[in-house]
């Protein structure tokens, strides 16, 4: 390798080089686009610009998707029975004490000419669920929950694993033994069992709880790899040189070594996101997940198992597809990232 002094003075950093390599990877770039699209949608949903009113019962119960061919009978069945003609009621001169309240309600929820509430739509873009919620907005809102849980929990788990792995690998000896013992305990318990145990102890349904559960159990893989990286790097000459210069332990660990393990951390982070999205789905599917007022892909799949018996497959299809596409794209992106960031593959 020779230096080229004829080039412009500012040289591409390692991140710029990684980006150049990623740009050449078509599959990676496409996956990046898909993941980016999800992030934009989730961002809009969080800002409240789309899918805010997913709780509105806009369609009839089990409204099929728009592309579903409806025949006469089914349309009639979905529309429900004809409303009964209004029967005059003789009040014998008494004044209805609830008339005011009733009028108030009727004013707030105007009914159509037939005396029904605002007419519910017979079909919805991706169909409706048992209560007539729009599945499309549910999927968008569910993406928000799932992606948020996946990202935050992965950040937590990766941060925990990195710090613990760094300390264990760098200091070695009894510190390493202690962390390895903890690692051994966590990995010896079957994963789902561990999650259930912590869920049972926390006794609280909520997004924060899920993030905590996944974050506190998911650090083991990161720990193992980062520890190995630190064991490898701590005897490298550049770290010894930093020590000879008088750099503190903290400085050597997090200023000198950490950037050299960033490719491992980044890849582990994105692997964890994929894993945790799936874990959230499993948790919610089994009923340990999000509370009833929150929708996630897992809770949708949980509802879908009853619907499927009735032949209403669209909620399952929508949630399943949304998850499959994101997880696949994220996995392929991770793969591309690993290739792009691996210093060994430098051209």
């Amino acid at each position: 390798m020779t230096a080229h002094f004829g080039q412009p003075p500012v040289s591409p950093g390692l991140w710029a080089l990684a980006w150049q390599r990623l740009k050449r990877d078509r599959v990676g770039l496409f996956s990046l686009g898909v993941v980016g699209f999800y992030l934009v949608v989730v961002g809009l949903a969080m800002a409240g610009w789309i899918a805010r009113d997913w709780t509105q019962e806009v369609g009839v119960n089990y409204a099929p998707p728009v592309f579903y061919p409806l025949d006469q009978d089914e349309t009639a069945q979905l529309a429900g029975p004809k409303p009964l003609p209004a029967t005059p009621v003789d009040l014998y001169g008494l004044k209805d004490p609830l008339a005011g309240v009733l009028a108030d309600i009727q004013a707030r929820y105007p009914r159509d000419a037939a005396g029904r509430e605002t007419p519910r739509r017979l079909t919805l873009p991706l169909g409706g669920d048992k209560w007539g919620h729009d599945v499309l907005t549910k999927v968008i809102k569910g993406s928000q929950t799932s992606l948020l849980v996946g990202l935050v929990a992965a950040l937590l788990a990766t941060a925990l694993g990195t710090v613990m792995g760094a300390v264990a690998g760098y200091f070695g000896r009894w510190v390493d033994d202690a962390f390895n013992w903890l690692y051994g305990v966590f990995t010896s318990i079957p994963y789902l069992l561990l999650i259930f145990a912590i869920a049972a102890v926390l006794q609280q349904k909520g997004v924060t709880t899920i993030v905590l559960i996944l974050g506190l159990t998911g650090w083991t893989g990161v720990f193992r790899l980062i520890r190995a990286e630190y064991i490898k790097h701590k005897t490298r000459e550049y770290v010894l040189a930093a020590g000879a210069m008088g750099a503190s332990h903290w400085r050597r660990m997090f200023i000198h070594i950490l950037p050299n393990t960033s490719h491992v951390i980044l890849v582990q982070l994105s692997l964890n996101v994929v894993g945790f999205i799936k874990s959230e789905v499993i948790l919610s599917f089994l009923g340990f997940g999000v509370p009833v007022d929150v929708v996630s892909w897992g809770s949708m799949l949980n509802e879908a198992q009853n619907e499927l018996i009735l032949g209403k497959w669209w909620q399952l299809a929508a949630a399943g597809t949304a998850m499959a596409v994101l997880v696949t794209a994220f996995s392929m992106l991770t793969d591309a990232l690993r290739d792009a960031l691996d210093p060994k593959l430098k051209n």
Partner: protein
Amino acid sequence: MLLRVKHLQISFRAGKSLLAPAVRDVSFELAERTTLALVGESGSGKSVTALSILGLLPRHLTEIASHSSIRWQGREVLRGSETTLRALRGRQMAMIFQEPMSSLNPVFTVGDQLMEGLRLHLGMTRRQARARAEELLEEVGIPEPRRRIRAYPHQLSGGQQQRVMIAMAISCEPSLLIADEPTTALDVTIQRQILELIANLQRQRNMSVLFITHDLALVSEIASQVVVMKQGEVREAGPLQQVFAAPRDPYTRALLACRPPLGERPRRLRVIEDFLGTTPPAPMPSRTRGSEANDRMVLEVRHVGKDFLIPEGLWRRRRFPAVRDASFRLARGKTVGIVGESGSGKTTLGLTLAGLLQADRGDIQFVGEHALHPEQEGSALRRKRRIQIVFQNPYASLNPRFTVGHILTEPLLLHGIGGNAPARERLARGLLERVGLPATAFERYPHEFSGGQRQRIAIARCLAVKPDILICDESVSALDVSIQAQVLNLLQDLQDEYHMSYVFISHDLAVVHYMSDQVLVMHDGDVVEAGDADAVFNHPQHAYTRHLLSAIPRGWHP
């Protein structure tokens, strides 16, 4: 003629684009029963040439020009099929590599690996192959071959591993042995044994040897024909006598001159640039070294020892003394050289001096300050300012994620030198200039620099804190000889300018002799001999020192 290489031109592919040729128009001939040395520095294309003879270059990554030709006993092999090549490899030509440890498969015994070739190429039965393998091990000088045939590679020493590699190479009685830097990874005394082995085998078996090396001194001991390569081109070729006595190419002349000579000590070493002009370089005044009566001491090392704990079994640990007992005094502006083979404890001693390892015994005393008990007199940080270390591997000693500017300003920041960031940047740019690098290097990353340039950066980083003592731990061993001369000259200049004291650790006796006023010879953790450099090299007292000195390749003498 056994082998005839003509107009060989090889380019590598990177993705879809073709890189500049790694080997350009290389032609040479190798007759029966001769040894030809292919000499060159890294990147000269010598190994690529050897691999192309064996057809071992990955075909999808290489492009060999259509007018190139390699003829083996008159037959073209360059465009031969894989089957004909495979029949040729092992049977007719065999190769040994630089790293014996990674050339042997660690999960098979050396016997299995030897017998594989015998059974495949010669169709021997298991029993025959075993008997032959024992004979071969005996022939290459492995003691107790009947027992060693069942040994795994890691149970053998580096020299023995290389012997096994040689046994494998000669097992099918090839007519040509290609040896690619076979002794570079070995100690100087082992190198001598392996060279003698190859020379003996060549004579006894009437083989030809293609010996690839960067070391001209070795060439003169083993080869009869020499081809000097640089950047893919042949610069000079001819019989040994002619190339060494009357080199025609300036590059060859420079290569011959830039190694430190053992007998004398020129003020500066020759570098390639000296030979590029039309006039021959003027004679160089020499430099005297050695301790003087009015030397002012800066460092006193008394009976320092360092043990390592080696796990033994599940619970027990055994103490292994890496350094048993080392004492010396270092004067201001002088150099103490430490020589020894691998495992002698010289690097451990260096790391202990630099404060990267804690000594178990003894006392390291700066003038007026105890290094072992820094808390008594000044902080550990202040001690680090006085002693700095330059490591062997310039590719590992610079943080790949830092720019050169970041690398150089960090010690300034840690020690509070320079005050603010712009002042530190000014100081760092000054350091770059001092070690002979352009100011544009400041914004660049280490991976953009060559080995010699990186070593300059590492030296600049040490200079940043203006140390009294600089430890050079094999600091020039990984560099090409021409680059080595430049870095040694830089170290000399810096010593003259700043009156720094050096602790110069190396396995390379010629370099240590050139750089040192005093020399310590270490063996198995002990200092076996110490004294003025010239005294030790000219009149060695200890048997080990004599053994070591006799193993140095002496270079060419008419």
